[in-house]
């Protein structure tokens, strides 16, 4: 890339600079002995072409829209269309969440993202004993198609794309969405959206698992197979590093563990007889935008290049779309402070900017009050407006990969890729991600503990928590979920059960029990079941019976 003669000359000059620098810092020491990223990568005072001596533009970067896609997955990125502004939302009943959805769409949001409550995510109806106290709390309660009809009332499904944070029962929620669309007169071929459907990171870091790995992977490959034929524009999985990072991992571990999970899904689908180029174009990813600004930008770029290589070299994918890492980003919830919470607005803005400079396809910006409660309407609006400022006012979206070619960013991108590759090799040695769950948990936990110790020692500054503290009053106007939502939900559920055709329900559940024990694709049966208003809990109970339940190994 660089002229070798000039490079040698530059290396000599760099040496001179370093000597001058050493003399200077001897007299005036720097702020810290060492500067490191959150992942512990050492940062130098200055980067020059000498740091990229074997750099090759064509090989290492290439052009946006081309392998290895490090500069972006489209050839003109945000000059064509800005990223999708997609705020994760859901609380209480389907009515309340529907109202929030419509409000966000009116304010210029361009995609929907559904937060489900924990009973829904774990396949329990609202009247299950374990659902007590949890109904409608961290998301909307969905027991059956009836609730989905309310959730999307007045929202035409051929006009929006919808992301659903649903994992263990993803196939059933997707089935509900398909039937809902059908009732609106929208064929499934026209649907756009994403199901998270990433069970491995549930075992590792998020906790909403139901079934053991074997049957869970089968449900996932059933979805891949069904969608590649019937719902071609649907993102069948969102392989998520977000929660791994929230659980405390470093940026390097986030990339490594996410891509290791991705490798496991691709391998499982190939083992199930699918052709890689049929399903891989619909794989999508989900990353965290944390505080260390440049490291985050480098992380997104490194993930893109590494995945392209994995798909091409390891799995022989030929379709460029199979090699592209498309991703959603959410700003880091764990960096929000309850102390001086309005400072979170600034944290979120920088994190969001790193995601845009890293080439994200869609983005959720957290609200400033989320360390205290679910976000209020006003705080969500401010979070959305933050994205709009980045998109429309500051020119950040006007050229492709604006930091590409920066000596520092390229060096850091390479470093993250290298370290993540070493982790992936280690996970391969352990037999792949499903066998390495406890290993990943231990690594994440160690990083989380180190991070906390650095906050407590003051090495890591958190404004308002360990520096610049001040006495303060808690802000007013926080959102509170109506505690009556559970009762209303249970009344609705009981009414549904008395009004539907229960003979057909029993018949379908029996059929499902048989099919689950055999090895046929379960998607068509899920669709048939939800159409008859069989509830999520009833379907999951049958699957629990056949598949068993996952038992967590406690790593601590």
């Amino acid at each position, binding site marked *: 890339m660089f002229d070798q003669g000039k490079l040698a000359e530059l290396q000599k000059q760099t040496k001179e600079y370093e000597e001058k620098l050493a003399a200077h810092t001897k007299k005036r020491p720097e702020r810290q002995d060492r500067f490191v990223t959150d992942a512990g990568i050492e940062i130098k005072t200055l980067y020059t072409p000498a740091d990229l001596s074997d750099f090759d533009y064509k090989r290492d970067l290439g052009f946006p829209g081309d392998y290895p896609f490090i500069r972006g997955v489209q050839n003109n990125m945000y000059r064509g269309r800005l990223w999708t502004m997609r705020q994760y939302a859901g609380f209480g009943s389907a009515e309340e969440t529907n109202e929030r959805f419509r409000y966000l769409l009116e304010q210029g949001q361009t995609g929907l993202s559904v937060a489900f409550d*924990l*009973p829904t*995510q*774990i396949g329990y109806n609202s009247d299950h004993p*374990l*659902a*007590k*106290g*949890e109904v409608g*709390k*961290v998301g909307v309660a969905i027991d059956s198609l009836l609730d989905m009809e309310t959730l999307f009332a007045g929202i035409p499904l051929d006009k929006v794309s919808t992301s659903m944070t649903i994992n263990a029962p993803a196939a059933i929620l997707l089935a509900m969405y398909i039937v809902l669309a059908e009732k609106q007169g929208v064929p499934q071929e026209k649907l756009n959206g994403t199901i998270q459907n990433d069970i491995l990171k*549930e075992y590792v870091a*998020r*906790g*909403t698992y139901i079934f053991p790995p074997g049957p869970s992977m089968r449900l996932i490959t059933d979805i891949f197979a069904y969608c590649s034929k019937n719902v071609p524009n649907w993102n069948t999985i969102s392989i998520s590093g977000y929660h791994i990072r*929230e*659980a*405390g991992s470093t940026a390097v571990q986030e990339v490594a563990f996410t891509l290791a999970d991705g490798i496991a899904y691709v391998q499982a689908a190939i083992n199930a007889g699918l052709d890689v180029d049929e399903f891989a174009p619909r794989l999508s990813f989900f990353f965290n935008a944390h505080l260390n600004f440049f490291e985050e930008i480098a992380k997104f770029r490194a993930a893109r290049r590494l995945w392209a290589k994995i798909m091409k070299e390891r799995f022989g994918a030929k379709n460029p779309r199979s090699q592209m890492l498309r991703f959603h980003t959410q700003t880091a919830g*764990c960096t*929000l*402070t*309850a*102390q001086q919470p309005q400072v979170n607005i600034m944290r979120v803005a920088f994190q969001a900017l790193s995601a845009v400079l890293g080439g994200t396809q869609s983005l959720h910006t957290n609200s400033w009050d989320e*360390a*205290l*409660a*679910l976000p209020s309407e006003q705080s969500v609006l401010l979070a959305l407006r933050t994205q709009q400022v980045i998109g429309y006012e500051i020119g950040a979206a006007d050229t492709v990969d604006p930091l590409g070619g920066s000596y520092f960013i390229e060096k850091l991108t390479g470093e993250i890729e290298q370290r993540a590759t070493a982790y992936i090799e280690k996970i391969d040695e352990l037999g792949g991600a499903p066998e390495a769950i406890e290993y990943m948990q231990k690594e994440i*936990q160690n990083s*989380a*503990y180190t991070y*906390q110790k650095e*906050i*407590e020692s003051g090495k890591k500054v*958190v404004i*308002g*928590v*360990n520096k610049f503290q001040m006495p303060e009053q*808690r802000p007013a106007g*926080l959102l*509170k*979920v109506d505690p009556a939502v559970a009762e209303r939900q249970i009344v609705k559920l009981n009414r549904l059960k008395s009004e539907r055709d229960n003979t057909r329900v029993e018949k379908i559940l029996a059929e499902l029990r048989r099919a689950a024990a055999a090895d046929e694709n379960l998607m068509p049966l899920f669709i048939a079941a939800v159409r008859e208003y069989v509830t999520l809990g009833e379907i999951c109970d049958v699957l629990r019976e056949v598949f068993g339940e996952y038992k*967590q190994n*406690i790593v*601590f």
Partner: protein
Amino acid sequence: MSGQSERPIRVLVAKPGLDGHDRGAKVIAQALRDAGMEVIYTGLRQTPEQIVQAALQEDVRVVALSSLSGAHLHLFPAVVEGLRREGATDILVLGGGIIPDEDIPVLKEAGIAEIFGPGTLTATVIDFIKEKVAQRK
């Protein structure tokens, strides 16, 4: 008795309900262990009854509950009630997670000794436990 006071404090760190956020619970567990306590972590998705049974079986002095899902008003008091039913009124019960200010008096009234919110330093929790356990001897 002097021999008794040398015994490390035993703590059960527990995750009641369906919440999967265990970063805080594990960090606290590790910090308490590094501070010389004996720590047992229950793992996710424990019912209040399971937590009570584990506390009795493990003969702990302290139960530290963590919930970030908003179900604390149902779950935390249920643990205290369960311990009372078993006559284990000397066990100190603490809570942590995303707990709105207005819920804190309700939880204290129900017998939770203290609530630790986001941003709490682990040293604060360690000191609190040592002090309370010393008082209850």
